């Protein structure tokens, strides 16, 4: 496949190539669909020494599946075990620990910051002996496939800027999303599916919205925009033919359109016309390819059992995980999931349990499923939210009830596959679960590492827009070598 893509890329240098070599209309470009920027002379080749559409060095991962837990799941009830917080239940957060951390408007006015330990117990699992809370029994079982990072930190303390920061590398502004950068950097592996797809689901917990700017192409061409796959009849917008029109009718119709467009090309000689003809052909192929890949009904029982019964209910997190595997298997470079409902300012114990229940099994199943298929080596799976949560209770602390506010200074995520070291726990926070004491990983470091696994140097994956060179990692970020196998 790769070779095919590259060669197709070569046949196409948008209008310049066509005009210089007088290639026929038919040879225009599949390449442009797959690697749209490969020959955009004005952009890439005078900016940096890389060729859009090709890795810069041998990649470990070819694809990414990013399970974004939107709203910010508490690290203290999942992967960062802090027994001391239980011991100190109800006592004030010492100022020496807080160190002037800015608080959100929701707790800034609180007169007391009572510490609260996890409502749920933790146990150690696997050869790595990683501590995992009882809320995540399935994840616990695959712990030796995971690299748990407990020392993530970010700069934002509110959802919108923090999410935007994670996805685009900047808190504000209309910058390209991580998936768009990857699409720009590597192009597509599949001529029938978009390179960057987005899947949304919603849990029952307190939720925060998601927004299309999280999967925006920003200033990159709109071909790099995340394409949302939804649960309805039309997995991709406007994909289905109208009722009454069958595939034969559509073929016939497109043939007529093509005939007329060819006549127009004869008259005008504008290469955009031939590009248009090719886009219609790709649309036609997508109409077949997408329903095939989104049809989960043919999955065998053992797979359904592994992901859980919800995976047959379209639009659930479990169904999206299964779909993510299929999309990835079919060459979609970047599959971005968002699961809402992780914003536990109050009622944390019951809400967190429900959220975990909705996601734990399928997340673990995805890793196992990829592994069984021999795909985990080349697929990087990421699980995590946009920031962490406070070690003290927001609102009144009760025996069975508490909440946690936003906390940017530390939180946990995990990664699996894609050349990331399995079975390790990286980074450490203090006994209060408030500050990082070893191996901090900034969001830009994380992004640099993800790009690195894909064979992209985050300092070279550049796009020049209005005179400035932009990167996903803005002006910072370093690859965390310790995480790499």
């Amino acid at each position: 496949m790769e070779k095919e893509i590259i060669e197709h890329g070569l046949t196409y240098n948008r209008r310049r190539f066509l005009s210089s070599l007088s290639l026929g209309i038919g040879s225009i470009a599949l390449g442009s669909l797959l690697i749209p920027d490969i020959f955009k002379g004005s952009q890439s080749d005078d900016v940096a020494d890389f060729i859009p559409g090709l890795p810069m060095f041998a990649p470990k991962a070819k694809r990414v599946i990013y399970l974004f837990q939107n709203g910010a799941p508490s690290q203290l009830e999942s992967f960062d075990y802090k027994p001391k917080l239980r011991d100190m239940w109800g006592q004030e957060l010492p100022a020496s620990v807080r160190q002037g951390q800015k608080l959100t408007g929701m707790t800034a006015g609180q007169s007391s910051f009572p510490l609260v330990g996890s409502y749920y117990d933790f146990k150690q699992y696997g050869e790595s002996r990683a501590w995992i809370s009882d809320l995540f029994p399935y994840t616990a079982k695959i712990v030796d496939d995971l690299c748990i990072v407990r020392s993530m930190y970010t700069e934002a303390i509110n959802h919108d800027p923090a999410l935007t920061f994670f996805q685009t590398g900047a808190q504000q502004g209309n910058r390209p999303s991580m998936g768009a950068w990857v699409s720009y950097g590597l192009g597509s592996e599949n001529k029938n599916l978009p390179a960057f797809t987005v899947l949304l689901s919603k849990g029952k917990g307190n939720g925060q919205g998601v927004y299309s700017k999280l999967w925006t192409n920003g200033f990159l061409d709109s071909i790099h925009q995340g394409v949302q796959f939804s649960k309805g009849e039309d997995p991709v917008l406007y994909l289905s033919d109208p009722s009454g029109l069958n595939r034969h009718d559509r073929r016939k119709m497109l043939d007529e359109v093509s005939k007329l467009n060819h006549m127009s090309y004869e008259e005008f000689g504008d290469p955009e016309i031939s590009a248009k003809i090719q886009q219609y052909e790709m649309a036609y192929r997508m109409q077949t390819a997408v329903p095939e890949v989104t049809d989960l009904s043919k999955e065998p029982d053992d797979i359904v059992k592994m992901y859980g019964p919800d995976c047959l209910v379209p639009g659930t997190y479990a169904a999206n995980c299964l779909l993510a595997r299929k999309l990835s298997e079919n060459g979609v470079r970047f599959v971005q999931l968002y699961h809402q409902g992780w914003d536990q300012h109050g009622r944390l114990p019951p809400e967190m349990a429900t959220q975990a229940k909705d996601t734990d099994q399928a997340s673990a199943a995805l890793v196992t499923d990829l592994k069984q298929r021999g795909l985990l080596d080349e697929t990087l799976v990421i699980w995590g939210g946009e920031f962490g949560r406070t070690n003290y209770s927001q609102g009144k602390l009760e025996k069975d009830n508490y909440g946690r506010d936003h906390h940017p200074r530390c939180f946990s995520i995990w990664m699996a596959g894609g050349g990331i070291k399995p079975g390790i726990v990286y980074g450490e926070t203090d006994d209060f679960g408030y500050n990082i004491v070893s191996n901090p990983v900034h969001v830009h470091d994380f992004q640099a590492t993800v790009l690195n696994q894909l064979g992209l140097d985050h300092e070279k994956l550049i796009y020049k827009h209005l005179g400035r060179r932009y990167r996903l990692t803005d002006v910072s970020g370093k690859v965390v070598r310790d995480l790499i196998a």
Partner: protein
Amino acid sequence: MQKRLYYIIGLFIAIAALIYSCSWLEGDKNGEAEIPDEVSYNFDVRPILSDRCFACHGPDANKREAGLRLDIAEEAYKALKDNPQAHALVPGDPKLSEVYLRISTNDSTQLMPPPASNLKRLSDHEIAVIEKWIKQGAKYEKHWAFTPPKKAKLPEIDNTEWPRNEIDYFVLNLQEKKGLEPNPEADKERLLKRVSLDLTGLPPSLELQNSFLTDNSANAYEKVVDKLLGSKAYGEKMSLHWLDVARYADSHGYQDDNYRTQWPWRDWVIHAFNTNLSYDKFITWQLAGDLMPNATREQLLATGFNRNHKITEEGGVIDEEYRVEYVTDRTNTFGKALLGVTIECAHCHDHKYDPFSQKEYYSLFSFFNNVKEVGMESVVGGPETFAKKPLMQISNEEVKNVLTFINKPDTSKLIVSVMGDNPDSVRKTYVLNRGVYDQHGEQVTAGTPASIMPFNKKLPKNRLGLSMWLFDKNNPLTARVFVNQLWQEIFGKGIVKTSGDFGMQGELPSNPQLLDWLAVDFREHGWNIKRLVKQIVTSATYRQSAVVTKEKLAKDPDNVYLARGPRFRIQAEFVRDMVLASSGLLVKTIGGPSVKPYQPPGLWEAATSGRGLLTDYVQDHGPKLYRRGMYTLIKRTVPPPGMGIFDASNRDQCEVKRSTTNTPLQALIMMNDPAVLEASRVLAAKVLQEKTQTRDKLVKAFRMVVCRTPNDKELKVLTDYYAAQLQALKRNEAKCKELLSVGEYPVPEKLNIAQLAAMMQAVNVIYNLEETITKT
């Protein structure tokens, strides 16, 4: 293993091809093959220095390496700090100039830019340019865009028959130098479609087509232009670009993204263009309408421009952080939209390329920092939250008497966010270190970047004074930037291609004399927008055919020299307008609250926080389904999907240029969007109801949509297709009914459904032609 081998082989092929294509491109770049006799700092040297050197040896004091700056002559001629025997530049002697030695060396420890910077090494050609420049004295010039434009006298040209107005002299002059010849004039049908789309965003009606085609008078075209300029749709067309610039939307943005009622401001923009408000007033009212002596209600409404930015309703945010964000947005918008500079780069540090210090950024910021506003006024709520203070309430009485252009459909309370400064005190403004809202540095007062034009101390230190500065006859940017944006909207790209960046890193004007002539002429004629538009569309340059021969395509692939007419896909909103107008469905109401036409289900619902008025998409019915694209409600976090696919702005920030892509998702819209299918059905019904031959029906439909008469070959494709469809559908009533079931517009009862379904398919083919949504 095999995969890896493929990878390596592929890499080789790709690199080989890249080298080939680079060498090919090299020759293509304007004049790059030869070094000019007289090397120009502005046009030849600065682009190189700016792109490869200024990041570390430029205006940004904090990032400056070795204490060396190369953007200012005196600094570059000085002895080097690290090595006082040596000089970066020794005018006349490259071999003594460190700049030359360091860019041309093969010693990687000495080489500039350093390999680790990820900046590309200078090409041999670039090195030769620098060398010659130093030989010729290493003379610096002020950046072209920061020098006031002057009207050059019309250039001498050989083909004196061709020009229709001054524009053509400048255009032809360059063509003749490049050995190009202009195309002949476009045929009448294509020209009419082009000018109709450019002036109204709508295809010409059949009546207009007929009257123009039969009008053989010498000024037939000018008559059409005047008619279109006088139509109400002109204001709508012109507004769309301005709505992008002004990041207009119908929701507050950010987390919950609830509804806002900013649309009366949009109605004002349309009105302003239609009444041909001069550009200086158009901008002054928007920037400072509230500060004008005896400000009218209309002038106050115009200031909504500076309140169109996103406003948070997320509980728990730090108020000042967001207030600063709004002021930042205004400052950046001012820079990009009106000055065409990336002033926003000086938000966190001194600008790396342009001579704007961070202090100057905050001096400009200061003009917008005195608004009587807070960062978070309220969380998601009812109508009282649809605008944020300062705001104006618009009564029905006012709409009847004064603000008559506002299309207020009912008697409910209507509020709009507008500008209003603290009356008694001036909020102190500080440099914000690293751009962080609470990291106060030095205190600053209102001012403008000195390199553009210092702020005249006699002017009031407020937004009104800022407007006066903007329209001062010596301001080098204001007129150029607007003229360029307008040119871009008509020709597809500006004379300065980077319409948002006239600075060092921006592209140079492809025709500097033309840009300057137009800018000065525009100012000298009272900033008259309609006059400028007319000047452009009546030029011979504009009226050329868009046909491109292989030779021309090879010589000028990007049509920089305009030896052919513009040809590109129309913008998102106009795609919709074309479909509605050609089918007769378009409801021509102007303005009013935005509408919610057909949209695929579940988009808002899947992304919502569950709070506010815009959690579920409740589609409109009746006439609201058929309004122009610019009236479709824009919820910022989930903008209308079809629009984004056709490159519409998401209105997150000021945008001065849209891209024009060509993707399979666009094809899917034209194939399957119910709006297109419904239009196909309605237009099919319309032609079927006429007592004409099938052939004539298809000709008519084609003319309505493509705006020209099909040739025989095209018509044969369509008639054959229709006949085949009819044959098949005759036997399948159920299928016909299914095909016709799309859309809410009623199906006429008397028609034969097989004929209607077959004709609908034929019309749908016409809608899917490349030419249909292309300005040709």
